């Protein structure tokens, strides 16, 4: 059966298209994109009047906790949350139990994901056991289906190991996703170091803990001509260093997360563990720096760092609660509310960060809407408000600092490989 999407505003950041165009999907592919397509009686016709018709969205940084913490989230459960949130492709992080450092585990993730509604592309560990010592069998991991390498959650502290990883991964074209954090400088801190950490008597993590590692990895990328991508960039200084790296023609890309352009460490006193993530929320000037980095293209990608934690784990003293918040379901609403509405981003500019840009970094033929391409489509009504509450959140874990917020941007349909995997109820 064909699906015909009519009357929508089609946004395809890869081609720079922003136009009233209809789309026909058939056999898992985009059959046609044109004006005023007439559907036949057997077609499923979607009236997208007033909505944006986007390529299926890509989130290149999620934690689905399987294997190991299936009580918190699973690959299937996480995939359903992603579908509901407009994402048709995600890249899972390998800091599971056990970590994803061999081919069998990569295949396991792909097998589990096949039961679900969306495309799951696993990343695998840079180092064996995620210990930061010996590099993993990258060739075999790539053959198994891994699309990138990262020791996310644990930085590769040894510079020589990082050098080897960048050199070796080069031959596969796969990026190294760097969790940039100097652990010794972070010194077991739990929020941004600054006025608020001093006031609250909480141990601070200076932004320099992130920035020194970003500087190091850019220099190593220059040395090795490797492909470095920085996860969850949170500080103004990081953006400046990456901007300079890009000006120097070093092969560097990066992502930020919606909370870094929406919140600051002023929230920690009230929200406590719900505002605890790593890297931590920074200050207003960092938040502005992140927005400017997104605007001028220094920051290529918005990824959620979706990190479910059980209520018990988060219902603790902030010092003992784990780092991380869920992010999939609030991602599009925050992009529309904070970037498009408050900061005048164009839809093309904003949605490039969750479509063609991450797909390009991960070498995926996703994140574009073109004739003959995969039939991944997300339809978003940017004027419809959603309220973040228990009822709205499908995720099993509700650890978000955005509870209670009303935001613009509701997901109307998510279509993955030609199938409607989510329809607003």
């Amino acid at each position, binding site marked *: 059966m064909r699906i015909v999407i009519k009357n929508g505003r089609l946004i395809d950041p890869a081609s720079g298209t922003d136009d009233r165009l209809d789309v026909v999907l058939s056999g898992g592919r985009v059959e046609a994109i044109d004006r005023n397509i007439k559907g036949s009686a057997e077609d499923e016709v979607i009236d997208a009047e007033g909505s944006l018709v986007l390529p299926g969205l890509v989130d290149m940084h999620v934690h689905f906790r399987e294997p190991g913490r299936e009580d918190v989230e699973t690959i299937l459960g996480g995939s359903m949350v992603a579908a509901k949130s407009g994402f048709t492709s995600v890249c899972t992080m390998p800091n599971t139990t056990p970590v994803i450092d061999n081919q069998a585990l990569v295949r396991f993730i792909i097998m589990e994901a096949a039961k679900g509604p969306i495309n799951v592309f696993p990343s695998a560990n840079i180092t064996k056991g995620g210990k930061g010592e010996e590099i993993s069998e990258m060739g075999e991991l790539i053959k198994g289906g891994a699309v990138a390498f990262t020791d996310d959650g644990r930085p590769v502290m040894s510079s020589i190991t990082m050098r080897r990883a960048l050199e070796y991964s080069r031959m596969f074209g796969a990026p190294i996703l760097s969790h940039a954090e100097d652990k010794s400088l972070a010194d077991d801190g739990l929020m941004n170091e600054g*006025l608020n950490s*001093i006031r*609250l*008597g*909480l141990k601070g993590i200076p932004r320099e803990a992130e920035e020194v590692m970003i500087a190091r990895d850019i220099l190593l990328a220059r040395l090795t001509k490797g492909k470095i991508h920085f996860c969850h960039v949170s500080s103004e200084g990081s953006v400046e260093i990456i901007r300079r790296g890009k000006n120097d023609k070093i092969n560097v890309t990066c992502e930020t997360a919606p909370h870094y352009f929406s919140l600051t460490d002023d929230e920690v*006193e009230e929200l*406590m563990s719900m505002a605890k993530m790593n890297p931590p929320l920074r200050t207003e000037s960092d938040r502005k720096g992140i927005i400017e980095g997104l605007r001028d293209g220094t920051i290529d990608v918005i990824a959620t760092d979706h990190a479910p934690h059980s209520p018990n784990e988060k219902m*603790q*003293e*902030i010092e003992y609660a784990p780092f991380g918040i869920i992010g999939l379901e609030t991602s599009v609403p925050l992009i529309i509310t904070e970037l498009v509405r408050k900061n005048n981003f164009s839809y093309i500019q904003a949605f490039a960060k969750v479509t063609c840009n991450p797909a390009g970094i991960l070498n995926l033929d996703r994140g574009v809407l073109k004739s003959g391409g995969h039939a991944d489509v997300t339809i978003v009504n940017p004027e419809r408000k959603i309220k973040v509450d228990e009822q709205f959140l499908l995720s099993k874990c509700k650890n978000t600092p955005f509870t209670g917020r009303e935001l613009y941007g509701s997901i109307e349909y998510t279509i993955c490989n030609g199938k409607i995997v989510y329809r607003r109820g």
Partner: protein
Amino acid sequence: MNALNRKDLLDIKSLSPEEILLICDTAKYFKDVFTRDVKTVPVLRGKTVCTLFYEPSTRTRLSFELAAKMLSANTINVPVTTSSVVKGESLIDTVRTLEAMKADYIVMRHAASLAPHFLSKNIDGSVINGGDGYHAHPTQALLDTYSIIEKRGTLKGLHIGIIGDIKHSRVARSDLLVFKKLGAKVTLCGPSTLLPDEFEQYGVDMTYDFDELLPDLDVVNMLRIQRERQQGSLFPSIREYNLLYCLTEERFAKCRSDVIIMHPGPMNRGIEIDDAIADHPNSIINEQVTNGVAVRMAVFYLLAGGTPFKDEENQEA
């Protein structure tokens, strides 16, 4: 000021100057009570006060317990160590158990900053902060304030120095807030690694030079130095710390003759303060302990809805 209309006492930040003075006035009354022969009054009869100390403490816990007993409350002490927190029951579950046993007041000390704030959002009972992490120690700050008022009548215009490990001190954070609120000039002094620039946000003066500061102070409040800080390279040795920041007899000689010497305890004699100074007539360190009981009685009384005593002697400071 007629009463403290609040469920909890969590920090100094949320108290107005009027509320602080109300607590001090009330403490004066209770000091009279408990320095007489029959020390109990029936203010908290039938109520249960539970002390829940997740960090070792002798004087603060005893002081709260004694204060509660003198107000005729039933007191229970739950001894806990940090290790049992990590392994066992969560804080919320522990306190809900105490609530199920109808504890009316939870006095908590906790190594994690904001733990009492977290607790107060999630339980109905009254939470009194007996010190949380590096964040706040409101009853210590109130007893320090009361002790100074007792000597000088007011804090207005006084110059108070707080000396030592400012960065890791909940006493320093609460003291500077209460002293500023009541109009004192506050100077923080310590080595640069223990005195972050961010403390400027409080509108206090800061210096690394103890010797230069001393002659100008009305009150010298010495903080305890934790020996383990040295392992984190925050200062090179106890010897050097002592050399730069110990209140020695030589340094004391530079002070005003009527200077007040304070210390929240427990003291490291010979490290941050010399024996002779700790026991000097200008030192009110032992009176601070006595006043601590009176101030905590006042806090219980006012949280229980008690109103000010109409005693002519209780002039507002």
